């Protein structure tokens, strides 16, 4: 059809709808408003991206830096020393449990004698304290030049005697002593004077008694005692040798570091010289740069000195292994008390593994190569699977984040474990059973928890929850709980409890929303079929809201993982992988966390150092975990949405 055939637009229309479009700087105002709103909405996205970029920029250099450090660690021979030193450290643990075993075995025999002696010493100190003023007066008088008159001294002596007698009377004598002994001791205490240098004869007798008992006990368990002593001394020679080598290696490392620092300095000075325009300054910078040259460190020669002693080390290790095994073989089976037996079992169990480790170390020494390059994979592995986080060490820094991750995860799990039932049940109650008045009370109160500053909660954790847990752990009828009685007031359980408290508002509100979103029709249908309230709640409403509840729990987990202040204050901050052999009691051990370590250490490290970069790596991991958790929560919630439709 020809376009001229189309009816012509009426003129009137053009008159009514006048083109009123005005532009500002060439833009349509509608467009400007749209862009303004769009920009505000995208700010959040941009900031998120910037955070990520910043974190990655600071953190990603960690890998090359740490690789260089590990390279030095190897080249300077520190790694070589650690090959022996690390397994040798197990000796300490074993030795200390044997030592505890010995004292536990001796305990029942020497206990009485020791307590009597200690009580006597305590009483003597108390008696002396009570007469301290008179005693001091006499002492001063005796030292005075010229010596004061005899009668003055006599008066002072008399004062002291009266005071000492009064003191000896006033003391409370424990029932450890018989009546006769008490009387005798009382008299001796009353006679105390500064001129007597020997201990009162009663105490001497008690000490002698204790020594005899101790000797008798040691004779009784002679096998154990000698085995323990032998084991304790077994690695002395090896230790000496390793220490010597370690010192050498450390010296090498320091000189390498110095020369590296000088080289970096030189590089910087030269760069500065390049950019400066002033010829004088340029000349002085170049001169300075030329001065900043360290002597070349010949690491190969240094480490050769170390490896040259491989044979010597191996001989020593063999000697140590032999004596350790001998000591282990001579350990008796029967050690009296159950405590001692348990400790002995622990040591006996650990010994073969330790010996094996030492043997392996001896072979590892041979295959160790100084020039083997450190692969990137190894560096990544050392970070993600490293079990040690050691900083500011005079020996070598290690950045393994497993201990931090375990701490964070265990604490978060405790928190979720506690918070989930509380918040979900509270949400079900509020949503389904509560009267309007109750709702008005419960909801704002729970939501208010969110407003409590976390540092205040940390404070409560230190001052209140810690003491409460400790006290409960000492109640006798609660001893069946694993880990009781606890050692540390500040531990993962404490932190977990507080974090649970912090997670409750999030979980509660979102679970309640999820229950609210259950379609009305479900409830109608269930009611109309004659279901009771409880049946409707548990067979229809909760199953229908379960994805929403799950998503709420996950978001609560996200909240808990990222929380810093409480864990920093309350978790105990021990950087070590908790000892999971303790079973569920592991929750009562202190730990450090991903968030806590950043807060604690970032302020103290120098910018750009490997430690700084390692902390940023931790930040990246933390960020990733949070993103993942939130993403999971969204995915679960989305499933819920699609189901409802």
């Amino acid at each position: 059809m020809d376009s001229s055939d189309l009816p012509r637009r009426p003129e009137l229309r053009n008159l009514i709808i006048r083109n009123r479009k005005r532009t500002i700087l060439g833009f349509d105002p509608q467009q400007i408003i749209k862009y303004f709103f769009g920009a505000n909405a995208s700010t959040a996205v941009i900031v998120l991206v910037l955070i990520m970029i910043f974190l990655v920029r600071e953190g990603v250099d960690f890998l090359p830096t740490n690789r260089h450090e590990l390279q030095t660690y190897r080249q300077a021979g520190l790694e070589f020393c650690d090959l022996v030193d690390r397994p040798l450290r197990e000796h300490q643990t074993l030795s200390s449990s044997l030592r505890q075993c010995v004292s536990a075995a001796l305990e029942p025999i020497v206990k009485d004698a020791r307590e009597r002696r200690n009580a006597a010493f305590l009483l003597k100190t108390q008696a002396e304290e009570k007469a301290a003023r008179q005693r001091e007066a006499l002492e001063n008088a005796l030292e005075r030049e010229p010596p004061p008159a005899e009668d003055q001294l006599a008066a002072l002596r008399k004062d002291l005697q009266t005071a000492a007698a009064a003191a000896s009377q006033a003391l409370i004598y424990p029932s450890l002593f018989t009546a006769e002994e008490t009387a005798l001791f009382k008299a001796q205490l009353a006679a105390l004077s500064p001129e007597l240098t020997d201990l009162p004869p009663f105490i001497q007798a008690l000490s002698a008694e204790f020594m005899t008992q101790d000797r008798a006990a040691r004779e009784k368990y002679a096998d154990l005692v000698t085995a323990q002593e032998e084991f304790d001394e077994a690695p002395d020679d090896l230790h000496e040798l390793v220490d010597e080598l370690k010192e050498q290696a450390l010296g090498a490392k320091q000189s390498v570091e110095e020369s590296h620092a000088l080289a970096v300095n030189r590089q910087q000075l030269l760069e500065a010289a390049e950019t400066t325009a002033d010829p004088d300054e340029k000349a002085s910078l170049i001169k300075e740069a030329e001065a900043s040259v360290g002597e070349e460190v010949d690491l190969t020669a240094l480490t050769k000195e170390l490896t040259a002693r491989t044979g010597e080390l191996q001989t020593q290790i063999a000697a140590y292994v032999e004596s350790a095994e001998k000591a282990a073989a001579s350990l008796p089976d029967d050690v009296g008390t159950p405590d001692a037996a348990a400790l002995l079992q622990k040591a006996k169990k650990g010994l073969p593994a330790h010996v094996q480790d030492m043997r392996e170390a001896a072979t590892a020494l041979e295959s160790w190569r100084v020039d083997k390059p450190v692969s990137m994979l190894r560096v990544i592995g050392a970070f993600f699977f490293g079990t040690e986080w050691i900083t500011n060490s005079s020996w070598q820094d290690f950045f393994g984040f497993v201990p931090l991750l375990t701490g964070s995860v265990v604490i978060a799990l405790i928190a979720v474990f506690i918070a989930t039932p509380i918040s979900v049940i509270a949400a079900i109650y509020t949503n389904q059973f509560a009267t309007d008045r109750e709702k008005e009370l419960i909801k704002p109160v729970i939501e208010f928890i969110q407003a409590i500053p976390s540092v205040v909660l940390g404070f409560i954790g230190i001052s209140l929850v810690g003491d409460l847990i400790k006290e409960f752990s000492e109640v006798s009828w609660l001893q069946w709980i694993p880990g009781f009685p606890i050692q540390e007031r500040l531990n993962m359980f404490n932190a977990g409890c507080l974090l649970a408290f912090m997670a409750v508002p999030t979980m509660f509100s979102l679970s309640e929303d999820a229950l609210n979103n259950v379609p009305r029709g479900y409830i109608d249908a269930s009611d109309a079929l004659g279901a009771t309230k409880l049946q409707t709640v548990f067979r229809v409403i909760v199953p229908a809201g379960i994805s929403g509840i799950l998503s709420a729990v996950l978001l609560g987990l996200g909240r808990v993982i990222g929380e810093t202040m409480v864990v920093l204050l309350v978790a105990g901050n021990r950087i070590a992988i908790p000892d999971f052999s303790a079973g569920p009691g592991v929750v009562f051990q202190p730990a450090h966390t991903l968030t806590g370590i950043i807060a604690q250490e970032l302020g103290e490290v120098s910018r750009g150092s490997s430690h700084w970069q390692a902390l940023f790596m931790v930040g990246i991991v933390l960020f990733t975990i949070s993103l993942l958790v939130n993403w999971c929560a969204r995915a679960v919630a989305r499933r819920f949405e699609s189901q409802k439709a």
Partner: protein
Amino acid sequence: MDFCYGASRALEDISLDVPYHRVTALIGPSGCGKSTLLRCINRMNDRVPGARVTRGQVRVKGKNIHDADVDLTQLRKQVGMVFQKSNPFAKSIYDNVAYGLRIHGEKNKAVLDEAVERALRHSALWDELKDRLGASALALSGGQQQRLCIARAIATLPDVLLMDEPCSALDPISTLKIEELMSQLAREFTVIIVTHNMQQAVRVSDFTAFLHLGKIIEFGPTEDIFTNPREKLTEDYLRGIFS
């Protein structure tokens, strides 16, 4: 019978004798109290705060349902209900139908299987769904969902089946299926249906009650009401003078 929501009276002077094993339709303009009346019969209004029967009584099979010895769950087992919008649970087809029996304590698998099959046959779903009883009820079409809701309601073998505009959200073909179903259901159940659609009332019901402003204007056999209304108001309504 009078019925109030708080202070406002929703139903006044209702006196209705619903015939046994017949389909009774409640018609009337919006807000006239049809649904309220329907919900009085299985006491679904109980959970609305302030809603109560203020005068008279509701009797099901001669028993006043507000008597102290009436167990609400038993009453609702006796009086099933189907809603305007289909509302199957987000469970399998089988679990949906078995829900009513399960909440009344039936655990025997054989009994449940039999009841589910019977209910699905009654609601003309068995042939369509017998091979996928484990599938989610939400995957069914709208008409199937509504028939599933009917199956769920009749699985407990109620005496009375209340239907609150069961077809208003459905397409004509699904509506037709449900209407066919209703005449069959009337053989075993006393059916009371609320409907907006007067043709539907003519098609499916044996008796019709016309409500207006909370009062029953006219009640009688459907044919009489539609061909020969006694009241002027009924006639006006049926002729579409107001709606």
